[in-house]
């Protein structure tokens, strides 16, 4: 304990140098913390939102776009598919269940998703207030969306066309909030959910010129996509091929597409990781230089400690403890900085209504950070410590 205390005093005997070293080391650690946190939370969010959805069937186009738009609700969908075609799919022997997803409108950039009660059940959503929708134009609002929009039970609002703000306002058909979901950590948190029929109603009321026209529209009803659950895993072999070749729709497997996405992001992650590595290396060198010059400057002081009876190991331990302090301080600062970066990113992204990342979590991988910090500082301290170990008391007598 005393060793730690004296090491602490020696460290702060040069406050500027010590602070700069802590800062340098923490910048590298903060980058790594940031990468780890974002990586862990992204894959957690993906796992959570993709779980149980075997394949997504929607309009032909980019399969990744289909997944991003329909499952993670980030991108715009490639187009719509006829309701009739989806109904046919539902009868397919390999299909266990289907959740319809209809996109198209938003309320202040929170998506209004036409779907079925099965969507709520799929994410095991529970209601914090109110009830679920019983008829078209009733909506259930996700926890985050409700909080951000300041929506309460009984409120009514009109959606606007498109998935971002600024579209045409469907002024004459208002939604009524009948329920608010409890926060579930899933994609539902930032959605406004309603019956598929609501979406049809809004658009048919808006575009139909007369009853005949409306009748035609009813026959040509579309949804955006269907989330499909297989009866058997074997379906993964044949079902997508069947959809892609025999229908006007395409099937995209979320697991496959997300792996592709992560591989694409991988390059960016590698660059960031390499950058963090360079920062850490620089920090290690800086710690080395600081400790090395500390030993040079304090050689005689260290020799005096030997004269006062300290064995070589004790003198070396004093130096090593200085490195430990640097590592501990840098870990704390680095972790806090990394969490702050992540929280800042999450804040920015939530404004875009995008992926769910929050600060201040501690995934298990994060233990790497203090280990790295101590590792870097201890390795940097090796040579200086050895030099301190070798300090000879004779230097005291010869320093004339």
């Amino acid at each position: 304990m005393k060793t730690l205390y004296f090491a602490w005093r020696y460290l702060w005997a040069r406050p500027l140098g010590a602070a700069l070293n802590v800062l340098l080391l923490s910048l590298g650690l903060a980058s790594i913390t940031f990468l780890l946190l974002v990586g862990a939370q992204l894959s957690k969010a993906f796992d959570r939102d993709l779980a149980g959805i075997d394949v997504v069937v929607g309009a032909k186009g980019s399969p990744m776009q289909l997944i991003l738009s329909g499952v993670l609700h980030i991108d715009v969908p490639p187009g719509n598919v006829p309701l009739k075609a989806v109904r046919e799919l539902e009868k397919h022997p390999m299909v266990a269940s289907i959740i319809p997803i209809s996109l198209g409108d938003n309320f202040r950039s929170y998506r209004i998703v036409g779907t079925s009660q099965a969507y709520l059940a799929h994410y095991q959503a529970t209601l914090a207030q109110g009830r679920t929708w019983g008829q078209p134009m009733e909506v259930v609002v996700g926890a985050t969306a409700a909080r951000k929009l300041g929506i309460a039970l009984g409120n009514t609002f009109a959606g606007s066309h498109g998935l971002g703000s600024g579209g045409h306002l469907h002024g004459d058909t208002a939604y009524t909030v009948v329920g608010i979901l409890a926060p579930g950590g899933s994609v539902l948190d930032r959605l406004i959910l309603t019956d598929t029929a609501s979406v049809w109603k809004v658009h048919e009321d808006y575009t139909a010129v007369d009853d005949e026209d409306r009748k035609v529209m009813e026959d040509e009803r579309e949804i955006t996509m269907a989330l499909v659950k297989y009866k058997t895993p074997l379906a993964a072999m044949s079902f997508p091929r069947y959809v892609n070749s025999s229908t006007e729709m395409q099937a995209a497997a979320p697991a496959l597409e997300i792996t592709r996405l992560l591989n694409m992001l991988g390059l960016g992650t590698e660059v960031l990781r390499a950058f963090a590595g360079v920062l850490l290396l620089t920090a290690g060198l800086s710690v080395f230089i600081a400790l090395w010059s500390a030993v040079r400057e304090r050689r005689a002081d260290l020799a005096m400690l030997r004269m006062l009876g300290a064995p070589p190991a004790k003198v070396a331990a004093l130096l090593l403890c200085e490195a430990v302090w640097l590592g501990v301080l840098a870990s704390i600062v680095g972790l806090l900085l990394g969490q702050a970066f992540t929280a800042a990113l999450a804040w920015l992204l939530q404004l875009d209504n995008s992926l769910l990342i929050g600060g201040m979590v501690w995934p298990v991988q994060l233990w790497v950070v203090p280990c790295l910090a101590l590792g870097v500082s201890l390795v940097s301290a090796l040579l200086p410590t050895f030099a301190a170990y070798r300090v000879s008391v004779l230097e005291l007598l010869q320093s004339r």
Partner: protein
Amino acid sequence: MIQTRNLRYAYPGGAELAFPDVDVAQGAVLLLSGPSGCGKSTWLALVAGLVAPASGEVTVAGQPLAALKNIAVDAWRARAIGFLPQKLHLSAALSVYQNMALAQWAAGVPEDAGRIHAALQSLGVAELAHRKPGQLSGGQAQRVALARAVLLQPKVILADEPTASLDDAAAADAVALLLATAKSQNAALVIATHDARVAQSIPPDVDGQIGFQPLRLAHNQLSNA
């Protein structure tokens, strides 16, 4: 208190130095005089157990140093030898009190605030306990260093060039302080110096209690130049 017999030291380069036999009684004073490079430092290092002799024996306070191994000699030195280096080597990062505590840490004994204050008190610097060494005058710093040397009540005090860079009055004060401190501790005092003023500052016979043994080591004692 200090006895050396047939003491020889071999330098790494191969040169060898032979020392005359020395006996310093408890409470006695030994003045090691001679020009720089004549072997005073080496003799101090041998007596402090910092280096091993090529041949011969050193016995300090009844302890033959040859019998102590590695870490044991460090622990022994902490208690048996109080050392006043030429440069004082008080840690600038620590207060006077913490410097004393550091000495107790180095010696592997528990921090003892009472003893630290007693040692500082005995040298009249107790009120400086919370100052940093940089805030002390030269004389004050030397008193603190001496307080540190006698902190563990050693039987032998080794002072290396205690008057270097001091003016005449200060040099006389420094020697007087060393003599008084050694007397109050009843410790043997060895002063290694090339400063002729030191010999003049030591009364030839202080109440018959302090033996005064000048030991002159000359260059020609290097048996193999």
